[in-house]
């Protein structure tokens, strides 16, 4: 956590903007360096043209232009200004006993430059030996220009991924219309504080997060959630800063500003993901640490062997430089980060927030996916569909409803809320009796004392366990469960009094999303606290075959662990992020269904900003695309180097007379960087398979 983390009034935009400017400056400088290097390189190549063609002079070129001294003057700024970073990087790494791509580039071009400098100053030494007094300035210039070009492409790729972040940040409007003493006043967003009342008119953006206090409207949240359809908002509904108000006017009370807003959190998560690394990357980094010293050893060995064979120091030096340059693993360093950056930026665009590179990596390897029923497959807004008084009950309906409502209003369980709402709507009198000794029994129900009577509302299973005879209930419970209803039974002083059937409608996206997951070859499991029969009916409706039912919230994590132990992993858990958090943490990949305002985003590896389950297959597809992309990149990065080393070392020379010019080695290496970066940028065209999905 930064000690400089923005205060409540200061949005993340300020920090990111500063960083953006600096990165932009870096890109500008790099572009200038590449341009200068390119121009000088073309001149140096022109200058060395007659020599390359094996001529003493060309008719159109003046003599001085082809002089080694001209080439020296042209190449020196390329080495010392354009290529400065490679040398400082190499020195910094060297001091830390570390060798990386800078080491190879700096050593290769440095040696070629020094040799050429020697030839330029003392050509007679070589001529006396009967050797051509050749210089290799064009090699130095070409290699540096190509590597710089690779670096510029990398910076561009970074720029494009942070583009996603910038676009997110630009969504926030600069000012808000705050009610001060009942009068609307236009103030900058940074001056808005929690608790303020803010007015929003049609067509305006909502400045910060809050809760609607008055009015209603349709709000488009697609920029944050990827959901195309506007969402209805009325008093009590949460609104997200940066979303777009469509038709109505409303006033909302500010609940979060600055770095606490959903927008700021999304930005922070994307940045975090972009600065993490995958297992593959860790491995690649370790490989580079070994690879470079081995290459240096091979290069020196090539020099020694060729010197012993031929006694020709110039030839030996060319082999040395070729090996150093072709082996440069700079593309290896680019291979994973570029793909990760592009993919996480792409995810953010689609409302899929990956918390780390590992999350992106693991999501592609998933074999089993566990979906929580309530709130994930269903809307999580249950409604009472059936209410029946039971034979043997003595209480009148009104009394029964009042007792039930009194007890259930104390519970925060979604079913309890549904029952309370229903009971209240049936009662004329809004006064509820007082409850004493209230207790919620997790996964079972609630109990308490009301006016001397002991009242319990809970699952039929609970009453079985308590030893209350529920045999008479069986046909009713079965009928309700087959209709996918959750059943709650009311027992007063041990008497079965009433029975509620509660339905939690499926999200319209669920069936298509499950089908999408199965198409991706995943084993789909539904997890539910409901009775087995209810759960199975719901599962059948969305096309899930395997159901783990009657699981108490606390046991969800152990269910995931069991699946992992049974070798069905890696396992993903999809939940609504709050009460599922232990299970989300236990899973190899925890996927939270953000409802757009959940702060529980942080508990998961992947957050779907929209509550749309279609995001899950999309996230997995994206992850697979990214990992395939990384594998291709590693191939591009390594293939050239490994295949090039024997040629560069001159192994083919005795057989074929082939000798790899160091400049070609440089081109091959640059080509591998270009392949890697352009391959990673291909991910920008990623589109999740479109599912015909209305919002829920």
């Amino acid at each position, binding site marked *: 956590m930064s000690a*400089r983390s923005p205060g409540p009034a200061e949005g993340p935009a300020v920090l990111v903007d500063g*960083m953006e400017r600096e990165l932009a400056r*870096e890109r500008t400088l790099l572009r200038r360096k590449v341009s200068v290097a390119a121009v000088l390189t073309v001149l140096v190549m022109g200058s060395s043209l007659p020599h390359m063609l094996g001529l003493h002079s060309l008719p159109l070129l003046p003599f001085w232009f082809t002089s080694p001294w001209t080439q020296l003057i042209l190449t020196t700024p390329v080495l010392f200004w354009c290529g400065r970073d490679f040398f400082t990087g190499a020195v910094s790494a060297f001091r830390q006993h570390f060798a990386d791509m800078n080491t190879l580039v700096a050593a290769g071009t440095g040696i070629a430059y020094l040799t050429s400098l020697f030839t330029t100053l003392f050509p007679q030494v070589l001529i006396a030996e009967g050797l*051509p007094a050749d210089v290799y300035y064009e090699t130095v210039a070409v290699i540096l220009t190509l590597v710089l070009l690779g670096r510029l492409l990398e*910076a561009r790729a970074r720029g494009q991924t942070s583009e996603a972040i910038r676009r997110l940040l630009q969504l926030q409007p600069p000012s808000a219309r705050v009610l001060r003493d009942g009068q609307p006043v236009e103030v900058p967003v940074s001056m808005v504080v929690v608790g303020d009342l803010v007015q929003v008119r049609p067509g305006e953006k909502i400045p910060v997060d809050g809760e609607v206090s008055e009015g209603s409207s349709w709000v488009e949240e697609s920029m944050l959630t990827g959901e195309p359809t506007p969402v209805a908002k009325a008093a009590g509904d949460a609104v997200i800063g940066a979303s777009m108000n469509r038709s109505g006017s409303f006033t909302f009370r500010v609940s979060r500003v600055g770095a606490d807003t959903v927008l700021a959190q999304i930005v922070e998560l994307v940045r975090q993901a972009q600065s*993490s690394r995958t297992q593959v990357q860790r491995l690649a980094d370790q490989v580079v640490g070994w690879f470079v010293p081995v290459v240096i050893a091979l290069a020196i060995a090539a020099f020694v062997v060729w010197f012993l064979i*031929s006694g020709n120091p110039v030839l030996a030096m060319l082999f040395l430089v070729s090996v150093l340059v072709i082996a440069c693993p700079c593309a290896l360093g680019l291979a994973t980060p570029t793909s990760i950056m592009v993919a996480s930026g792409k995810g953010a665009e689609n409302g899929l927030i990956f918390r780390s*590179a590992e999350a992106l990596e693991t999501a592609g390897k998933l074999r089993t996916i566990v979906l929580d029923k309530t709130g994930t497959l269903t809307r999580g807004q249950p409604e009472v569909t059936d209410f029946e008084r039971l034979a043997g009950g003595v209480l009148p309906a009104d009394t029964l409803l009042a007792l039930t409502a009194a007890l259930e209003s104390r519970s925060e369980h979604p079913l309890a809320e549904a029952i309370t709402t229903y009971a209240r709507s049936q009662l004329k009198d809004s006064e509820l009796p007082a409850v004493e000794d209230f207790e919620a029994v997790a996964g079972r129900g609630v109990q308490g004392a009301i006016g001397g009577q002991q009242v319990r509302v809970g699952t039929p299973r609970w009453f079985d366990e308590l030893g209350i005879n529920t045999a008479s209930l069986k046909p009713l419970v079965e009928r309700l469960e087959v209709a996918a209803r959750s059943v709650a039974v009311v027992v007063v002083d041990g008497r079965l009094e009433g029975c509620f059937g509660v339905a939690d409608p499926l999200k319209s996206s669920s069936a298509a999303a499950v089908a999408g997951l199965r198409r991706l070859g995943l084993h789909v499991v539904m997890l539910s606290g409901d009775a087995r029969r209810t759960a199975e009916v719901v599962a059948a409706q969305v096309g899930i075959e395997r159901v783990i039912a009657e699981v108490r919230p606390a046991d969800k994590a152990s269910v995931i662990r069991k699946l992992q132990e049974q070798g069905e992993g890696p396992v993903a858990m999809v939940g609504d992020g709050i009460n599922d958090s232990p299970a989300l943490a236990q899973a190899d990949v925890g996927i939270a269904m953000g409802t757009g305002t959940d702060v529980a985003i942080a508990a998961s590896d992947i957050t779907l900003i929209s509550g749309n389950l279609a995001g899950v297959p999309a996230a997995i597809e994206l992850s697979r695309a990214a990992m395939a992309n990384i594998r291709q990149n590693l191939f591009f990065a390594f293939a050239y180097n490994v295949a090039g080393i024997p040629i560069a070392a001159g192994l083919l020379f005795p057989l074929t*007379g082939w000798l790899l010019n160091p400049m070609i080695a440089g081109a091959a290496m640059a080509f591998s960087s270009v392949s890697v970066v352009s391959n990673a940028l291909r991910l920008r065209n990623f589109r999740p398979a479109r599912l015909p999905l209305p919002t829920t």
Partner: protein
Amino acid sequence: MQILAAAAPLWRTIDQPVALKGLVAIVGLLLIAWQLWWFLGRHGGGVAARQSEAGLQEITILVDGGYAPSRIKVKAGQPMRLAFHRVDPSSCLAQVIFPDFHKSLDLPLDATTSLELPPTKAGVYPFHCGMNMVRGVLEVE
């Protein structure tokens, strides 16, 4: 362009004195051995973070062409605060990234910016600049 150059003028055998050949071979082998030792051998060193009150381990790192110190030793299981003081204008150093902690920190020029990291298991955690050109290592032991 001489893509695969024919042997002609460059490829020429020169009779070198045996002593010179021997010398080149020996120097070459020594150089190979030395660089392998330098890059791959075990090297101690590193600067230990100081203990402050409240169990926090603190160290200030100067960012000037590199990280000084670049090898930082801290104890496992204790929170730490790394203060980066950046004086190098190179924009490459404007950001420092701790990939294992999923942390990136922006370093304004001529200012000290701190990063607090949670207690960590023993291990070697590299960090690097935004362009992965300059590196450092956090050694937790």
